[in-house]
């Protein structure tokens, strides 16, 4: 049951309701697509291992959030301990694109003193005929926020793997270069269990069971 991983990254997925957050995560973690899915209430949790380089596995903990404003008080608590995020909009729903900057503000005001590496995701790209947001304008917005942009489809499994893996790789590089540091009391990044590495006595005393998957 135990799997060895180098780091654990905690990601959060946000965006308006019905943009397809849960479906995207399910496609990534379970490899399947459900035509209808229950509205997420509060937050939901998923996880998956990603091999970023041969032999280098990252455990992703993914928090799925309710899109509705009313649950903001619950979802808010999960920003602080996230190192990365997928900010979703639905390419067939202009309003969800217009709300992207509100979501970003919401996240940024609750993540202090940390920060979240975001990826902008235009979802439901299989519905090209109903597109209301062009790839160019989405890329422009992402650029303005210093993010990358990717278009995905959970239904047709387009770029789902790429979205999560690219974000993971970006965070991995930041961690490796020391731009993102592992800190006590912060769950965003945790170092994992590596064979022949002795955990510090401090970790043992705190009762962290970081090797458990």
């Amino acid at each position: 049951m135990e799997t060895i991983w180098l780091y654990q990254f905690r990601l959060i997925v946000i965006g308006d309701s019905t943009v397809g957050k849960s479906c995207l995560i399910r496609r990534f973690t379970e490899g399947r697509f459900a035509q209808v899915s229950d509205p997420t209430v509060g937050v939901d949790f998923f996880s998956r291992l990603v091999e970023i380089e041969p032999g280098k596995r990252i455990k992703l903990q993914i928090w799925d959030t309710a899109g509705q404003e009313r649950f903001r008080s619950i979802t808010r608590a999960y920003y602080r301990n996230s190192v990365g995020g997928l900010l979703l909009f639905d390419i067939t729903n202009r309003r969800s694109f217009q709300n992207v900057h509100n979501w970003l503000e919401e996240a940024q005001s609750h993540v202090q003193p940390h920060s979240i590496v975001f990826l902008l995701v235009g979802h439901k790209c299989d519905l090209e005929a109903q597109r209301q947001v062009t790839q160019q304008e989405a890329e422009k917005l992402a650029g303005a926020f210093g993010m990358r942009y990717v278009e995905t489809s959970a239904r047709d499994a387009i770029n789902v793997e790429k979205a999560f893996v690219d974000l993971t790789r970006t965070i991995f590089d930041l961690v490796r270069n020391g731009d993102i540091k592992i800190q006590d009391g912060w769950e965003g990044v945790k170092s994992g269990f590596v064979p022949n590495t002795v955990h510090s006595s401090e970790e043992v005393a705190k009762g962290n069971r970081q090797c458990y998957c």
Partner: protein
Amino acid sequence: MASEELGLNHHLDTACNTSPEGTDLGLSEEEPEMENVLTETESAEVGGDTKHDESSEEQTYSQETLDMYLINLHRIDKDVRRCDRTYWYFTPENLEKLRNIMCSYVWQHLDTGYVQGMCDLLAPLLVILDDEVMAFSCFTELMKRMNQNFPHGGAMDSHFANMRSLIQILDSELFELMQQNGDYTHFYFCYRWFLLDFKREMVYDDVFSVWETIWAAKHMSSEHFVLFFALALVETYRDIILENNMDFTDIIKFFNEMAERHNVPQVMTMARDLVHKVQTLIENK
């Protein structure tokens, strides 16, 4: 009561269908998720048609009220469309009933408005009663208790605190494991249980029996049967949780995967035993 409701519905339908799209599927994309983005075009559309027509209407409503209601209608439409679609009962015709009831309820509770999860609470009532007026009345009654569990109600933290206390008293070994993970915010794995009275944890037949038990228990044994059922769910799997040394994310994941797979009669028996156990403890104190 019934005629009053119908009258209200009729009035609302008139008010709301002033939007050219009416209840059309296309409406969903208009919904502003963030409070600061209200759609002006829709307001204008409503305003055009509801101008103080006092001769034919008993009451007029402020533009603000109507705008608020329209936003709620869009939220309702989004969720009705995806409510338990795999269950045989929810044909387009019956989904329309669900929608009618929810629209009526939200109109009467516009201060709170529609919150995701409400459809989950209404659906089993409609399935059993198959009658809009009856289901509306029962749902209104049910929401008097359930409202407090929604984010605006603030009761969730006390549920978590109660769970923590009960586990501390009844299962110190499990309590110790959970303690390693910090405070009772880590009882988050029961959030959906309390919010929806376990509705998403079980198949419909089990929902009916658990809900009836919760309602009856209030008069027969404990007002807090919900808490004991939650405790029984945890205790049912306590060995698995302990053996695998699960942290709170593992527990969330575990219960997500177990949804609709519980042996509910067995959990129910354990819940009853736990009520008895705690009551005995209190009596012998």
